[in-house]
């Protein structure tokens, strides 16, 4: 009996874990948009140099999402001749270790990195605005996915557990 509970519980847990990733991803894209808004403010109003601007953004927003900005900032602070786009890519790698990202989503962030820092204010703001728009679209589609799949994974976990128990009985 105890074993049966363990199996149902375990499978249920895995199901919930997978379902949780969906809500985490929705959250991520929401926070990323916030992050880009903050970066926009830093660049537009106070012309903060990039290392400091990224560091500030990284501190202000939630941890998972902030790791993208924080990592890029630490890379730039080392001053070893790294370009902003290289540092940004390091940030994307750190982020994708925390929250799974699809290839397209990585590409989107990557493209933003190419223009980072190496043009005047106007271009920077354009680049940020464009990326924010794209992130909004991604957020919507990820939300759809969440609606479709989250419940399914939660039930699927428990059901799979129950099926295994039934077979074993």
């Amino acid at each position: 009996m105890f074993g049966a509970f363990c199996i149902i519980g375990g499978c249920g847990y895995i199901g919930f874990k997978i379902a949780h990733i969906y809500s985490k991803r929705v959250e991520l894209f929401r926070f990323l948009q916030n992050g880009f808004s903050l970066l926009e403010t830093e660049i537009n109003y106070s012309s903060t140099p990039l290392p400091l601007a990224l560091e500030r953004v990284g501190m202000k927003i939630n941890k998972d999402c902030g790791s993208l900005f924080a990592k890029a900032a630490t890379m730039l602070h080392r001053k070893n001749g790294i370009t902003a786009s290289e540092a940004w890519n390091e940030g994307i790698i750190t982020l994708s270790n925390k929250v799974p990202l699809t290839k397209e989503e990585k590409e989107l962030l990557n493209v933003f990195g190419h223009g980072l820092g190496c043009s005047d204010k106007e271009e920077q703001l354009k680049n940020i605005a464009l990326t924010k728009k794209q992130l909004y679209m991604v957020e919507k589609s990820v939300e759809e996915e969440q609606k479709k799949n989250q419940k399914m994974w939660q039930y699927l976990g428990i059901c799979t557990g129950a099926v295994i128990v039934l077979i074993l009985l």
Partner: protein
Amino acid sequence: MAKVFINKDADIKESINKENVTTHPTEIKKSIISVSPLKIYSLSWFQALSPNIQELVIDCLQSFIGEFEEIRLRINQPIIFRTGLKEMTVTSQKQLTFNLEKGYLINKEEIDRTVQLLSQNSLYAWEDEFKNGYITIPGGHRVGFVGKCVLDKGNIKTIKDISGINYRIGRQVLGCADKIIPYIVNNDQIYHTLIISPPQCGKTTLLRDIVRQISDGISKIGFQGVNVGLVDERSEIAGVYQGNPQFKIGLRTDILDACPKSQGMMMLIRSMSPRVIATDEIGKKEDIDSIYNALQAGVTVITTVHGGNYEEIKGRPNLKELINWRFFDRIIVLSRRKGVGTLETVIDGKTLEGI
């Protein structure tokens, strides 16, 4: 290697403070010998070089490090280090050579990385500086750029495709004005002074020390300091970086940084009521006008001008007026005859005769 330096944080801080402060011209030579690798890493202009070039300097040029005045990077041309009147370069096999043609060629990537490093990867934060063609880095050194200018309605918007970079390493020589101060300060009176000097003869260094001494006061001759207003159009005299002057320029000095000279002089007279106004490299019509205004406000003007000798300046359109008006009390001519900052002649501006 870097880890060793991190452990000695305190030493680094100390040497940053001493970095470009030399006590007397003759002591420059001594300090060159004592530059250790640790100190090289803490030099702020060194930190602004790209890692590749840092390596070249560490490997081949350590013995010259205290003497550098300029480092020039030009696209597809050899890197050039200039000390005083000598120019040198490094071959790709890391050999020091005075034959510039054999030097290590700078490629576009090197230049791009250097620009990213200098701008902290944030060109947008230095738009105005790029418009003017130079930025000031920590330590008060200046880095100039050339490239393709992007125009917007006839005005320069920014410089792109940067093809040449010049590091101008500023140096503070405390006490280099000692010999000249007696000609400028007499009891409580300070004379209107014009310093004439060809480029690279220590004109800015001298002006910096004059400002410092007048502002701090000179106990040797019992001179109490007075308020000095400094219009630093090219951020060269005080080397202001993010609001902090990087050189010692005296405790009664107010600095208007990156401000056009003529406007700056008027602003200072109105806002800070200085006794002395110091500024670099006059010559434009507006400059002359605002010097007249300063005179009317009872403010002493100490300034410099590019030129080989007194005769040459006497022929210049705008300066001619000032000299014929007998505006300046003292005209000081510098040269490089016996090393940087040789005092050539001092002329009494009223009688136009040597002192």
